[in-house]
């Protein structure tokens, strides 16, 4: 099971979505599919047509910058970051 950490900005958009969860997936892309199954519409908040990750959504797998096709290990840690700030 991969460990997934989601940004706080997602939680208010989807009922019952936790900040931290575990799921079975062999890639970042597949992990997002698992999320989409449980919270329809979530994938669109992180990806744009391509599909590619949205410009300011950064994903790290075991602390390395990742893309949708990045493979996940059984115990991978996946951090999804809303990466910009502003005023």
């Amino acid at each position, binding site marked *: 099971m991969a460990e997934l950490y989601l*940004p706080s*900005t*997602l939680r*208010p*958009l989807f009922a019952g979505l936790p900040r931290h969860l575990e799921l079975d997936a062999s890639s970042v892309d597949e992990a997002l599919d698992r999320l989409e199954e449980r919270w*329809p*519409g979530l994938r*669109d*908040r*992180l990806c*744009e*047509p391509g599909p590619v990750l*949205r410009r*300011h*959504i950064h994903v790290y797998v075991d602390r390395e910058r990742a893309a949708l096709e990045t493979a996940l290990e059984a115990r991978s840690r996946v951090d999804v970051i*809303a*990466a*910009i700030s*502003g005023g």
Partner: protein
Amino acid sequence: MSKTLVMVGTRKGCFLLESDEQRRDWELRGPFCEGWPIYHAIHDAETGAIYAAGASEWHGASIWRSLDRGETWAQSSEGLEYSDSGLKLSKVSGLTAAHGRLFAGAEMPGIFESGDGGQTWKLLSTLEGQPGSESWNDPANQPPGHLGIPAILPHPDDPSRYWAIVQGEGIFETTDDGTSWTPRNRGLRADWPIENPEVGYCVHKLVMSPVDNDRLYQQNHVGMHRSDDAGVSWTEITEGLPTEFGFAAGAHPHDRDTFYVIPLDPGHGRCMPEGRAAVWRTSDAGSSWQRLDDGLPQEDAHVGVLREGMAIDGHEVPGVYFGTSTGQLFASADEGRSWSEIASYLPGIASVEVAIVD
């Protein structure tokens, strides 16, 4: 007793203000929509729902909806995409509710529709093949703001007939629900070279008189214009205004000849001239203009108002509202004769709409 509901779209969420018919005291609620930048928030008179078009820097474009006047909100962008066409959707910039449908104007230029109250969307038209469309998706040709189609103006009696503004190109009309379009820019002036006289005009705001559907007004980049034939031809009515430039405009709900605008300096500042806030009104279809500033700041008020930043309610004595891009919201309950500031410290305001609700 009915209430007056003002919807304000800002850089950091949607806000709602409510008052009674007197419109003296206002209750402010918000921010809603999780603080997303909201480009346009509207009320659907048929269903009572509020819709708000937003685009988060992180999470993309989506359209929020509230069926309980702001108590709870949901958002959806399902179907809000160009699929395999190669076009990219960056934001939804204008919303319209009419005849049981919702329309959303988007950038890159396209019109989406929803028949299920904003739960799902589908592409209605990109105006492909219209003059100008061969180059308007080139980012190098897109005006600042990247609004695409900032507004869709419905015909109140004919569901298949509506007008769309393409930013930097002009107005297009369809009478067959988006299957075909006709440019409606005859008589407009441009202060720049244009290759095809049918398009190339920077129309900022288009409004229709509620009591005469052939009477349209528009504020564009270089002047005010009136049409008496539903946009087939336009006559300039700028004379008497302090500047030819502005964004916002509004039509009187009961008088076809009365119309409001907010002239701005045309340079980079795009604020009200001389730091003195004013709305201007014509009561004779543009033959003359009156300055309305009683209660508005007349010193050091360097404020601007964007294209959806003014609204007029439908009360017997109409109220007029405008919000500035620096977060002040002003209201008049007497057709613009006197004004008060009803919110002072909102985020920058992109849109103001008003509805009379039960």
